């Protein structure tokens, strides 16, 4: 049976802070929650739409390209317009894809983490690590409100 919550952490985990979202996904996976499915991905692609159409809550986690001091939480709605590149659809466009192709989209949030170093590397900066810790707390809150 499909789990009701889907968390997608995405980014390049060999580009230092760019992999922060994936570290959040890996940590949440380690919690072993029965109601949460996690995915750690290089990028968002249109084939996520079917899975999104089957859950009640989706949480996207990404590193912010713009400098941030703390995690930003955005409530998402389907985006039905605007230019889109197909290799890396944004979360709102994926919700639109789920709604249009499969008739349903979940309640969704987008967590954007602070990041400052995108050079080749497998470790994250202190700033990004603080963001990961903060994001994990916010993920707990979001899961609690849905469970």
């Amino acid at each position, binding site marked *: 049976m499909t789990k009701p919550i889907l968390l997608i952490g995405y980014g*390049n*985990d*060999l*580009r230092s802070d*760019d992999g922060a979202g994936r570290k959040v996904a890996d940590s949440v996976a380690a919690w072993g929650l029965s109601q949460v499915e996690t995915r*750690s*991905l*290089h*990028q968002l*692609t*249109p*084939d996520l*739409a*079917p899975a999104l159409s089957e859950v009640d809550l989706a949480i996207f986690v990404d590193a912010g390209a713009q400098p941030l001091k703390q995690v930003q939480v955005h409530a998402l709605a389907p985006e039905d*317009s*605007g*230019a*889109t*590149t*197909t*290799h*890396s*659809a944004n979360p709102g*466009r994926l919700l*639109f*894809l789920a709604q*249009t*192709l*499969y008739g349903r989209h979940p309640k969704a949030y987008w967590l954007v983490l602070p990041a400052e170093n*995108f050079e*080749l590397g497998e470790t994250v900066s202190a700033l990004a690590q603080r963001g990961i810790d903060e994001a994990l707390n916010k993920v707990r809150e979001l899961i609690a409100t849905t469970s």
Partner: protein
Amino acid sequence: MKQIVIDPVTRIEGHAKISIFLKDDGKVDHARFHVTEFRGFEKFCEGRPLWEMPGITARTCGICPVSHLLTSAKAGDAILSVKIPPTAAKLRRLMNLGQIIQSHTLSFFHLSAPDLLLGMDSDPVGRNVFGLMATDSELTRKGIRLRQFGQEIIEHLGGKKIHPSWTVPGGVREPLSEDSLKEILAKVPEARATITTALELFKKLLDDFPTEVASFGNFASLFMGLVTPDGMWEHYDGKLRFGDSDGKIVADQLKPDDYQSYIGEAVQSSSYLKSPYYRPYVDESSSEGKAEEAGIYRVGPLARLNICERMGTPLADEELREFRDRAGGIARSSFFYHYARLIEILASTERVENLLNDPDILHTRVRAEAGINQLEGVGVSEAPRGTLFHHYNVDENGLIEKVNLIIATGQNNLAMNRTVTQIAQEYIQSPEISEGMLNRVEAGIRAFDPCLSCSTHAVGQMPLHVQVLSSSGDILNETWRD
């Protein structure tokens, strides 16, 4: 001379720029495809243990990680001096077929179908998978399902869809389970039906693009890829064959280990993408620029179909015959990459089924254990986009001292330059740039399905930037596309 710059190209993996040089009379002189993002991946690997290389190099890209995984493991096999267990080889083949299915499906259904179905001159805002969805939602759903099928094969074997660290020097970490076998096998008919539908659709569309077929990289060149000892289509093992546009086999059964004797690598000052060439055709003592163009060759689906004698499975062989009838023999037009890609998906579904019905496929002996027995090794396999080489030198402890990666997209670099020149000559008559022309130039590049993440390790995408420059470098015209 004037220059038009398209920077970067959209809907390909990574960052690129196209410069179109105009003569003083406004007609196109030539064009160049530049990759402006530096990879640095080969340096990044130095000092890492050999056993980590499949996992590291797979992270070059999120679209074709399996290709790096397999090729890296094969280079590792060479350094360990092992012959991997037969079941491990079959499982690696199965994973590569899953990779070909998912990557080719992404290329056709998500990247190129919008151009083909919605039209090259349609509004770029809607000319993407979302626009396609509005026009043909059933086809979009089928494309998504087909890509999932390929990804699920990878996931069943590797434990996850992206960057599975399952293939290792000496074999693979885990055998295939019976449950996974049944699940994959049950989905083959749907995948087969979808690709058959897509092939029929493409063949109908082909007649609507006579100008594109004629001008999208339609030229004589060599083609290179792996074949079996009897010349059959190959994707994982075998040896290399070069064939020409007249169907003549130029060189055959070349050992991948000896690649440096027949492949040279030229460097352009304007691009981080290397330009490999066929060495026997190039006067390397020449001081003239562009000498490497005499050794131009293409790799990938078009090349693989052009050089092989047969696909080796009934449905794909039938399609290969029709492909050659439509192309008039060897397909010279790069527009036929799309067609070849679809036939390879069909062949892959047949081969997946055959492998899953192989009595050896569930055996549990899947890894040969050994230490460092050689200090140098070359691995080669057919990635979705073409032949991929990994060449490693290690020390006595197996730590990487030197890495050379020859990526499919790089090997098509000279051909992509020639393709862009040909399209620009067909569609550009002045510095004025129409949206349809821009997209045709990009579509010409997209036909190769270049993966610039692999070839340079670029990350993400950017809007389109177009510049028209005079011969002295002055910007005459400039526009951006978000």
